[in-house]
């Protein structure tokens, strides 16, 4: 092998590695990354919620969405989902412990699947916990497919459709305000705070009232932990939560494979080239 051939081979190698790096997906780091800062979060105590829907109203007001009609209870008759213009909904469940109201919105996972899935990095996990979306969304809807809670919603009626969902009031947060729903809640069924403190508070409520709660904090470990965490008096499956999600963060299911792609792309040609070289030199 002469000098020129050697440099050529090395060059291909370096180029390949450089390309490979671009292909590695943005990996969202786990808890307590980002210089030791805490994630913020919201604790939802479903035993306190009275179903007044003030959170829905406050959410709509804060984000300029169409205002919901909260004057009567008839909306509770069937289960509602969040939509692109209703980022949070309260549903009513009939259980053996009576009527239970559950607020639903984006869970703001610690390691969100939607962020890992986003091709253009429009979906971002902020270091303070908020999972937000930018205007550069191309409408591919991969986040919708990836989300275990089915939260990102698509503006099907818009000529320039984008994804919409709860952003934990990122704008208000930067102004130093609470999320609109937390501020509006009259019974403090919603508590905003550092996620770790909220987990402590949730566990201490269970400890102090062992008969009033199921002994589980939903979102504490589900899909690697979420920023919205829930307390309930009945098993979470009965109030519309999925119990089959496991504790593995969703991006982890794909990182192994996606990490292997650049290596295969880069190393495989190199190996072939090497073998080729070796064989040819023998022939010479």
């Amino acid at each position, binding site marked *: 092998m002469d000098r020129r051939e050697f440099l050529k081979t090395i060059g291909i190698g370096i180029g390949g590695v450089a390309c490979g790096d671009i292909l590695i997906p943005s990996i969202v780091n786990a808890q307590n990354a980002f210089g030791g800062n805490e994630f913020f979060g919201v*604790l939802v105590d479903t035993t*306190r919620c*009275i179903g*007044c829907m003030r959170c829905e*109203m406050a959410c709509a007001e804060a984000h*300029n*969405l*169409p*205002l919901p*009609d*909260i*004057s009567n209870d008839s909306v509770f008759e069937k289960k509602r989902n969040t939509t692109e*213009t209703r980022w949070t909904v309260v549903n009513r469940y009939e259980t053996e412990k009576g009527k239970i109201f559950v607020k639903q919105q984006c869970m703001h996972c610690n390691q969100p699947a939607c962020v890992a899935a986003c091709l253009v990095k429009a979906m971002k996990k902020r270091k303070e916990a908020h999972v937000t979306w930018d205007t550069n969304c191309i409408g591919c809807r991969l986040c919708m497919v990836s989300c275990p809670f089915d939260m990102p919603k698509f503006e099907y009626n818009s000529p320039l459709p984008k994804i919409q969902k709860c952003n934990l009031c990122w704008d208000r947060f930067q102004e130093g305000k*609470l999320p609109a729903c*937390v*501020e509006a*809640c*009259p*019974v*403090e069924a919603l*508590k*905003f*705070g*550092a996620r770790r*403190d*909220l987990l402590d*508070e949730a566990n201490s409520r269970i400890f*102090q009232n062992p008969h009033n709660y199921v002994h589980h904090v939903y979102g504490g470990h589900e899909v690697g932990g979420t920023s919205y965490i829930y307390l309930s008096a009945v098993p979470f499956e009965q109030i519309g939560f999925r119990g089959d999600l496991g504790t593995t963060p969703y991006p982890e299911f794909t990182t192994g494979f996606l990490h292997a792609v650049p290596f295969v792309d880069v190393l495989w040609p190199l190996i072939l080239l090497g073998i080729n070289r070796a064989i040819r030199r023998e022939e010479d």
Partner: protein
Amino acid sequence: MNRKLFTFIVLIGICTYCFFLFRETGKIWSAEYKAGNAVARPIFISDTDMFKELERPPVGFYHDKHTVALEKEGCGVCHLQDEKGRFIFKYPKLRDEKTRQSLMNSYHDNCIGCHRERAKAGKKSGAVTCGECHVVKKGYEEWLRPVELDHYLHYQHEKALDKKCELCHHLYNEEEKKPIYKKGTESSCRDCHRGKEGGKTASFRKAAHADCINCHMEHNREGKTAGPSNCKGCHVEMKQRTISEMLAVPRPERGQPDKVIISSEDARMKGVPFDHRSHESYTRSCRTCHHKTLNNCKTCHPLKGSAKGNKVALADAYHRASSGRSCVGCHESKKSEPNCAGCHHSIKGALTNGYCLVCHSGSFREDQAVRRLETLNASLPEMAPEVIDIGVLKKKYMPVRFPHLAHVRKLFEISNRNRLANYFHADKAAICAGCHHYTPIEHKSPPPFCRDCHNVSFDLQDLKKPRLVAAYHLQCINCHKRMKLKPLKCTDCHAEKLMDKSLSHKNRSIKVR
């Protein structure tokens, strides 16, 4: 040849199918599947102590069916009689319990033998093959309710037997090997009869069945009114009284004290004055508290505990909050009743500082029997306002007019009605503390405002303490919910503010982004 074989296999298939089909349909039409027929339910014979693992499904035995069918022949067909003619209710008559095999044989010989004989004699008879008795019964659940000899049932027996306690209560004389009676030693049957089946002392089940049924049958024969002598009579049809239905029942007399000061010689705390008589009317039977013997607690539970009392020390026996037999445990359970839960759900802990002396006073005081709270007007702090206007949300709603005095009156009334509450709420501050928590209530000095502790804005540092709006809502809503009052709508408290129509939520046009 091939064709013959094929037909044969098909035939066998059809036969098996028919067999299972008819077996299932047969079951559906048999008596036990007729809904609502409580008699047609089996008692399961499995004797797991002896048989351990069963080779075949346990036999479901229809006792009441046999009683009816053998009415003429009498119980003697299956059960032994002693020299006095009393039945010994064990089956089979001569039960050979030496080995597994011998016990099985004695069951089989007796059941099948009798069925065969009757069939030969042309009478109505029962099963003789294995599969007829050893059938898997699906959906079996306990249908025989345990019978509790409560104050009411005990009094019924007392009345019917002219207070002849010796007819049921007895001791056992080891030397003469016979039961004797001694006045004043009456106790629960379970004191002695609590051994296993087949032990030296008859098990409770055996003793109760032998004594109850024999006595009932004797009375029936003599033409007196008597209790039932079949299974369902006691275990299904008999209705047990609730505590409130038993209030008029006279107490069982056994020389128990009316009032007693509970104390122990080497205890450091003062004794507790205890009204035994009134507590008798709050319980179903003596066994509610005297769970093993009718002796006083310290016999088995001395100050430091003993092996006899399962190492439970005296203080623990009285104060364990999780036990239904202890003083504290029983009183705690009363706190979850709707009238009490309103305030008590938020007051944590069974025993709080300074409350020891409420019980450990050392002597009965004149006013202690009923420490009725002073009349309302005299006891209220003078500035207790009649109505309080709460205007935290006055931007959106009219101020809430909270009828303070009406709430106080209601709580005082509830407390005065209940003797237990009456005793422990001796100080009126105890009632005010339901809402005015952590703050002192005194005459002539108003308690601090809610807003003095509960911030108006959300405090990220203190997650325990709700902010002002939430504090009000949680206090009111939780109390109303626990007291099982009718649910309140927002507008029941917050009157709608008459605002500029264009600003009210309903009439605001939907904004489109």
